[in-house]
């Protein structure tokens, strides 16, 4: 490492003064463009890296920039490549690739100071493009570093002094100035961020964000929920106004599936009348109010605690706050959810769901495909012969699940055509979707209307901020059974019969994950896991606060904030006015701070005065007419040798620093003012005995 430093210095020195400024700009652009490389197509990233290396070589070797024809051809070729790759030049991915490509060509063309400014502007655009992909805390940190680098490069352009006698501007000086500017700019930015009025919708069109992520699909087949069980990503976070419900009641209902084709469950296609917006739920106990922060999922489902007593309110969707209701009292956003949203809802854990279903509706929940699963049908027929009561039949079926040797596992054996038959009688091993599917098929075979419900169950309370966090691996499927007009649709979870710990304590405990190819088992109460979990909880809490207060600060949030602060009419005119006033006030205060510099006395004089005071206490006073050098000669006579040497060292240094200091002309042996101050503070006259 020690050998690396001089070589690096030599390499950088080889650029020359102007070349070093260009190098700083190139590094700044690289900083700001690098995080974007993961989103670019491979050829674009390669072109960018090549252009960067080529420019560094061109600058160091003092070669001329490529000719205009060559650059035009390169631009045309790269634009054509972008068009070929994406089929369009509009849209997020194509636009960003085009921007990076144009930035590379502009870098190659860098020649005069005017061009560097264009590059800096393009760099800020690239910084903004990062946010089109992600606005998480790490991305914010990386972009902040890139912005600091860009501003440093911009400052370095304007630090030139006299080439004859001023030292060339160093990066450290430029960085110091850029950081000072940013620190002063921070309060202004905060004031503007809070006060600048937010628009309620986009300015034009419907800009597509091109989101891709995991989430619950609208069909359920064996294996569909199992695939979600591998993911630790947070699906949504719930802040309850009061206490959170017990784990057994944490069922978050998303969609109801009723159409079975022998293997896959789908949402019922036929719809009766347009659904009423309010859910058909009668509360039978206290209700819980809560706020859910739902991560983007590319699906329209809203996850509400079983069962909602009124329609939820959604903030943060681009097209407003409307929700769509289904006849099964589930809710959806009008469009696929590609942005984080805030949902405010109220549910009751003791309830009666849709007690007034019509027979026609109930008939749709009994249909089964005719030629599948014969053994299940036989079992149903046998059970029907014993009793007719739906409650009794339900108890019999659940007893069957509980007492027979059924396994709850993430890796069940594969199933064939008669999936329910094979599951119930042969393999007897499966995940929640197998149990729910088999249960509903069996119920329907018993002429009891039943349907599959998909959603999330369980979750963990975050120790840092008390939110209930549900991750993708908490995805769950259960069933609802019609038990007559007294009870309505009743929730039945067959998984609870087989693996009650799944419902009570979450999937981490029911199916502990294995690490290192199964060598270790990550049980949740492992000490290492607990330590990691508390770290993870804190990070999730920070991210949750970041999402809510920074990223979710949209028009609704702004309005509610100011209404809470007591402003009755926070429309955009008042907010603009407040923003201007705050801006003026803060910038006046900052201007005063920046411009204030008291002309202080020369610190050298002050130190020398301290030195004279020390000598005066020992009885040696400098006459007013005595110059410092003459004084030093007198000290040599009056003091003992050791003290005199140190005193003269101080006097000589003082004279050299104060009277002979000119820029660039200091002799190499002159001590620094800091050394002089230190000598003076350490100087003592030994007491005369």
């Amino acid at each position, binding site marked *: 490492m020690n050998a690396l430093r001089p070589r690096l210095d030599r390499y950088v020195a080889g650029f020359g003064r102007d070349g070093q400024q260009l190098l700083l700009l190139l590094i700044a652009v690289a900083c700001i463009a690098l995080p974007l490389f993961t989103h670019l197509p491979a050829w674009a990233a390669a072109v960018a890296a090549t252009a960067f290396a080529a420019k560094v070589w061109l600058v160091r070797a003092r070669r001329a920039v490529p000719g205009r024809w060559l650059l035009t051809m390169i631009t045309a070729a790269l634009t054509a490549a972008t068009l070929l790759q994406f089929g369009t030049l509009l849209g997020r991915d194509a636009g960003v690739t085009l921007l990076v490509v144009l930035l590379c060509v502009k870098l190659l063309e860098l020649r005069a100071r*005017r061009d560097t*400014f264009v590059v800096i*502007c393009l760099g*800020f*655009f690239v*910084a*903004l493009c990062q*946010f*089109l992909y992600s*606005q998480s805390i790490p*991305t*914010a940190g990386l*972009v902040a570093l890139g*912005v600091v680098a860009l*501003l440093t490069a*911009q400052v370095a*352009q*304007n*630090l*030139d*002094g*006299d080439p004859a*006698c*001023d030292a060339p*501007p160093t990066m450290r000086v430029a960085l110091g*100035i*850029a950081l000072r*500017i*940013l620190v*002063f*700019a*921070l309060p*202004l*930015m905060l004031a*503007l*961020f809070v006060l*600048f009025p*937010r*628009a309620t919708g*986009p*300015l034009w069109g419907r*800009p597509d*964000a091109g989101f891709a992520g995991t989430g619950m699909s609208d069909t359920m087949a064996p294996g569909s929920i199992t695939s979600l069980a591998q993911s630790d990503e947070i699906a949504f976070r719930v802040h309850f106004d009061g206490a959170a419900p017990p784990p057994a009641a944490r069922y978050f209902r998303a969609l109801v599936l009723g159409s079975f084709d022998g293997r896959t469950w789908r949402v019922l296609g036929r719809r009766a009348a347009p659904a009423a917006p309010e859910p058909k739920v009668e509360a039978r106990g206290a209700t819980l109010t809560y706020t859910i922060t739902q991560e983007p999922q590319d699906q329209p489902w809203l996850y509400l605690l079983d069962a909602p007593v009124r329609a939820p309110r959604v903030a943060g969707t*681009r097209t407003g706050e409307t929700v769509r209701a289904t006849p099964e009292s589930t809710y959806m956003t009008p469009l696929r959810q590609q*942005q984080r949203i805030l949902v405010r809802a109220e549910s009751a854990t003791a309830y009666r769901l849709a007690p007034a279903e019509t027979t026609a509706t109930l008939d749709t929940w009994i249909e089964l495909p005719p030629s599948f699963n014969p053994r299940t049908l036989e079992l149903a027929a046998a059970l029907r012969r014993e009793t007719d009561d739906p409650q009794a039949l339900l108890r019999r079926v659940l007893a069957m699940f509980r007492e027979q040797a059924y396994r709850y596992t993430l890796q069940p054996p594969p199933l064939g055509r008669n999936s329910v038959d094979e599951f119930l009688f042969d393999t007897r091993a499966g995940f929640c979707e197998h149990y729910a599917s088999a249960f509903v098929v069996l119920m329907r075979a018993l002429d009891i209307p039943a349907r599959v419900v998909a959603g999330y169950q369980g979750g963990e309370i975050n120790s840092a901020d008390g939110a209930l966090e549900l991750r993708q691996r908490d995805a769950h499927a259960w069933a609802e059974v019609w038990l007559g007009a007294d009870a309505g649709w009743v929730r039945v979870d067959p998984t609870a019969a087989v693996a009650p710990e799944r419902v009570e304590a979450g999937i981490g405990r029911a199916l502990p994950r294995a690490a290192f190819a199964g060598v270790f088992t990550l049980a949740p109460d492992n000490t290492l896991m607990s330590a990691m979990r508390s770290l993870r909880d804190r990070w999730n809490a920070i991210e949750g606060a970041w999402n809510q207060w*920074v*990223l*979710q*600060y*949209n028009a609704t949030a702004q309005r509610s904030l100011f209404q809470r602060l007591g402003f009755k009419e926070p429309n955009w005119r008042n907010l603009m006015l407040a923003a201007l006033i705050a801006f003026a006030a803060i*910038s006046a205060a*900052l*201007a005063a701070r*920046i*411009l204030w*510099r*008291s*002309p*202080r006395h020369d610190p050298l004089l002050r130190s020398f005065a301290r030195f004279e005071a020390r000598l005066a206490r020992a009885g040696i006073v400098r006459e007013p007419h005595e110059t410092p050098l003459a004084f030093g000669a007198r000290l040599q006579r009056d003091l003992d040798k050791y003290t005199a040497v140190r005193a003269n060292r101080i006097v000589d240094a003082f004279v050299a620093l104060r009277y002979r200091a000119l*820029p660039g002309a200091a002799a190499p042996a002159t001590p620094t003012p800091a050394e002089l101050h230190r000598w003076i503070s350490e100087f003592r006259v030994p007491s005369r005995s």
Partner: protein
Amino acid sequence: MNAAWRESRIAHWLFADRGPETKFELHHRRIFTLPTRTGMVFLAMLALLLIASINYQLSLGYVLTFMVGAASWIGLHHTFANLAGLRLAASTVAPVFAGEVASFEFEASDERKRARYAIAVHGPHGRLQFNLAAGNHRRANIECLAPARGWLAAPRATIETVFPLGLWRAWSYWQPAQRCLVYPAPETPAPPLPALSIATGDAAGAGAGSESFAALRAYQPGDSPRIVAWKAVARSADDVLSSKQFEGSSQGELWLDIALAPPALGLEARLSRLAAWVLAADAEGIDYGLRVFAQERAPAHGPAHRDACLKLLALTGIAESLA
């Protein structure tokens, strides 16, 4: 009221023309600040960033835009502060010949203990850019072409800077109260010196002439190196300097009289010829006197005599003090 008067009143108010000053400290009433062209482009870029953030509803886009916008606003204060408190003091100016470039020196010092960067000073000719460390001082100069002889008033200097971000320009004007003495340009090719004028009187022999070598004498400080007897010095044991004593064959003094130049040349050309004679006589190291119309300088030699003669030539017909 005519337009010229109105414009001069506006300029006086706007630029607070207080006339020439020897010392000048920049403070807020004397500094003007406006955005540069790059500053306007930057503003357009910020507007585009803001529109993109509004359209795509990027909270962090707002943060970025406001951060960069606030940074450029803070940059304005830094640009202003880069000039505020700077002290400029005019120094002496060395005289030059007509046609040469006069260099008006001044000293820039820092009143407010702030490190200042990229301060540009320019006059009509060329531009100087310098840094100034905190509490430090440095000398710099403004250059100006001296077209004619006489007094040349210092040109108005513009002090400006675009530090730190290049988005704002702060500038100020200073009219230094210096003036430069411009000698008439010596005639080229240099004409030969006139002959010695015959002087009446009884000074015989011992006066200093210029014709033949008479004896060695002790070196007098001020003797030109041309009349130092170098060979004698080299031969002497302890490097004692001695000069040659010339004796003029004719008793005469060298008088450079404007009457010796033909009037048909015109005043300036005659003064140029006299200037060339003064320079030639000074180079020879001989005594010479100068007579211009009613004014004259007694014969002497040395740099001070030369400068006095040239000053007399420069200010012929021109008042000594400038109002």
